[in-house]
């Protein structure tokens, strides 16, 4: 403490609400909001969330409306992004396609976060035998490439939106658990945890009410990073036709089905691919912005 005035500046007790490293969520959001990276990502993300909810209002055509007379039409004033092999408007399908990925990915992420936080808290706080056993299982799970586990599980369970959510959740749990566990390990050595133990708090209370609120920042960062991966995973699974099924305008599925026409009608593939790219990049920008805010 003593003799490091430069640091003392940021944690000065006399200035309430100063952006110390261990401040709350509100301060994190505030710091993130002043970063251009975060704002750019957030703007794109908000755009796609809006589309996922209100594509019905915005889309110029019904994304499922077949028009055999306008099959594989190139982009024009009438169809800005062109049409696909069945004459469906690509723009409308891209806009509508946001909803499936933005349902599956966040739900899967949420499931993985809940599971990972629970496992991470318990292993990190209790250590010992429980920790050893669970972490070895986690190591084993992490050794498998994510996509292989997903393919395995989905071929057994059958493909449906719910199953994709479950798979993403299960695959993310050990990854999140690691992050949470390491945060808990350093937090549990702090004296406020010792003080809680000395007044006889239960393990559950200490984990949930004492430790958890103090590790929300790394958890928030982890969640956004995971969301990016979840979007990518869900698109990949659709592309491998293990996820969302026809006739959904899902981007991964559309790319998969349209890739036959890549040479003749690239717009069928390029626009949903671009949409997917912008969404993943947006989420990563948000994650970067948050990470910077946490580290500052």
């Amino acid at each position, binding site marked *: 403490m003593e003799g490091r005035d430069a640091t003392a500046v940021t944690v000065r007790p*006399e200035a309430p609400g100063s952006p110390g490293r261990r401040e709350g969520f509100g301060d994190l959001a505030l710091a993130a909001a002043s970063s251009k990276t975060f704002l750019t990502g957030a703007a794109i993300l908000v755009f796609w969330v809006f589309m996922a909810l209100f594509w019905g209002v915005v889309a110029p055509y019904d994304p499922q409306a077949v028009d055999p007379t306008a099959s594989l039409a190139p982009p024009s004033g009438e169809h800005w992004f062109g049409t696909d092999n069945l004459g469906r408007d690509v723009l409308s399908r891209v806009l509508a396609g946001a909803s499936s990925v933005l349902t599956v990915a966040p739900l899967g992420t949420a499931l993985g976060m809940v599971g990972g936080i629970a496992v991470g808290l318990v292993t990190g706080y209790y250590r010992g035998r429980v920790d050893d056993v669970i972490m070895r299982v986690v190591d084993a799970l992490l050794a498998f490439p994510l996509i292989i586990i997903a393919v395995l599980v989905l071929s057994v369970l059958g493909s449906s939106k719910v199953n994709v959510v479950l798979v993403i959740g299960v695959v993310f749990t050990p990854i999140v658990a690691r992050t949470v566990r390491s945060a808990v390990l350093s937090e549990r050595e702090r004296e406020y945890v010792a003080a809680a133990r000395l007044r006889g708090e239960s393990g559950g209370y200490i984990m949930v009410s004492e430790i958890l609120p103090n590790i929300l920042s790394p958890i928030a960062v982890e969640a956004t990073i995971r969301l990016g991966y979840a979007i990518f995973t869900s698109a990949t699974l659709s592309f491998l036709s293990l996820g969302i099924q026809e006739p959904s305008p899902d981007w991964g599925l559309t790319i998969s089905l349209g890739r036959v026409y890549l040479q003749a009608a690239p717009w069928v593939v390029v626009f949903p691919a671009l949409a997917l790219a912008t969404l993943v990049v947006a989420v990563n920008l948000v994650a970067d912005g948050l990470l910077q805010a946490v580290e500052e």
Partner: protein
Amino acid sequence: MSAANGRATVDVEGLSISYLRRRQPLRVIEDLTFSIRPGEAYGLVGESGCGKSTVAMALMRYLPQNAVVDAGRVTFAGDDLLGADGATLRRWRGSRMAMVYQDPASALNPSMRVGAQISEVYRQHRGMDGAAASKEAEAMLGKVRITDPGRILGRYPHELSGGQQQRVMIAMALSTDPELLVLDEPTTGLDATVEAEVLDLVEQLRSDFDTSILFISHNLGVVRRVCERVGVLYAGRLIEEGPSDELLREPRHPYTLGLLRCVPRRGMRKDALRLEPIPGSLPPLGADLPGCVYASRCPIARERCHVEPPPPYDTGDGRISRCHYHDEVPTIPPGEQQITPPPPSDGATLLKVEDLVKTYGTSGNSMQAVAGVSFEVRQGEVFGLVGESGSGKTSLARCLSGLVDASSGRATFEDHLDISAAEHRRNAELRRKLQMIFQNPDTSLNPRHSVRRILGRALLLLAGVKNRRERERRSLELASSVRLEPRHLQVRPSALSGGLKQRVAIARAFAGEPALVLCDEPVSALDVSVQAAILNLLLDVQAERKVSYLFISHDLNVVRYLADSIGVMYLGQLVDVGPARAVFDPPHHPYTEALVSAMTTLEDSGGSRPRIKLGGPMPSPSDPPSGCRFHTRCPRFLGDICRDEAPPWQRDGEGHQYRCHIRPGELSGLQRANGASPDEPQAATRRDHPPKENGRQG
């Protein structure tokens, strides 16, 4: 004020520095002017946040990126320092100016041998080849009085003790015979005996080298020992400057006086004198203060002080004070001396520890942190536990508090409660009666909980207050008993200053009317002005609630002031235990003797007492020496008996006993002959404020 004879090594004039935060400049150094003459040691003192490290960084041109120099001029040996370009700075740093940091363990490169790190300087700045450089390095280590420098060269930093590491740092800094050496809190993280060692070295080096030194410290006693002149920083302003002896004996600024009055002075005891904390707190950074920065806390502030900033008044003898009423400072009366009557102690034993052992690690690779400790704490007393880091005092506290299980031995509380078991096996009564206050309030209070929640939770679990209303009422009561205001209940700890946070921690420990509170270095993370307030508070609460404290500290001044009984620990064992007075006076254990002689008190003008030097570093607790554990370093080592036989307890009346082969009568003679008589008998009753006791110095 600049150098009268010849050119100053460093000349700072009107320096103002701001830090940018959220694009908002916050002034941290305001109109700073001082100079260091060649060969002079200049001490810069102040509490945390006053800007002293910023000054050091500015002199080395190491300021962080968000720092802006708003005004002023710094010249280094006549050359403009602030305007110097990168190439010039690289040439200067390391060869003409050097810096030693607070924590030598992190300032040395852990992956390089010490020899390679020192000889790098010679190769870099003197263009020497490898062999010549390492020869020079060895010679340099000899100059900083490292024993066996040849062997040390081949070691890695982690193989050295803290004192050796700091010597290596100093050797590196001095290797090019720089004109300026900046020492930034060089002894702060070190143990008392090591601190004394390093300060001795700095004193000796002053005569060997003609280097100007800027010595930065928060410890007035340390600065007094080493420096000729002292500048006192407060809120980024140099509020007083002058020759160190005169300045500290008769300060001319109320802040300096306040600092001097809030540290326990030699022979000062709680039953005779009360510490005087400085009221209020440091103004926030960037605060717009039209008048004197200290006005809001000053006992003699008038209206003029709040509107007119005081210029640097020349008070004669090369002294400067930024106080409009500097003439009145010597006549400021000591504050109200309301001495808290010590609680009536019935002398009953509250805590009885018998042969307590705590071993960490497995059988193959184990470390006995506490190696068979026995002592008693009586009702209503303060039992002080002292010892250097690694002596096992914190491990002992963790065993007693129940954070860890004791490996063997017994500890009984109030005659019937067994406390050798860990916390989850303790019952509610024991938890309530035995609480703990931790060293650092920043980490002992959950940063995400409001003070209300922190206290409420403690009341719920320790006092069993289930009703929400009742809990609120009791929280307010508890807060007011530690002099917190109701508005403090709503905020989170981050909105409180260090002292207020520690008050919350104290209130929490007292939620369930404890009988014994373990205080693990409760004031060592706090500034001196806050320290005094917390120590007073602990005494007040003790008087109100009749509690006992087990007070762990490395600061002997504090323990001597506060404790009724004292236990001295070395390598996991208690080596000296008894009533406070008896432990501090000879005869006492040679280790206690060394600790006492290493104390830096304000009264020492340096060199008045022979310091007892301990040989070598503290052995590792995982492989303690045979016989007497202290024999490897003992200044009164007798011979084989110390090496082979564990020493017996020697009794010296009044319940004082120590573990040594030398009998009390003999030891007393040896220790008194050495002149290490630390206490004048009348000291405790003397009205102890600086202006009146200048007879002994000078």
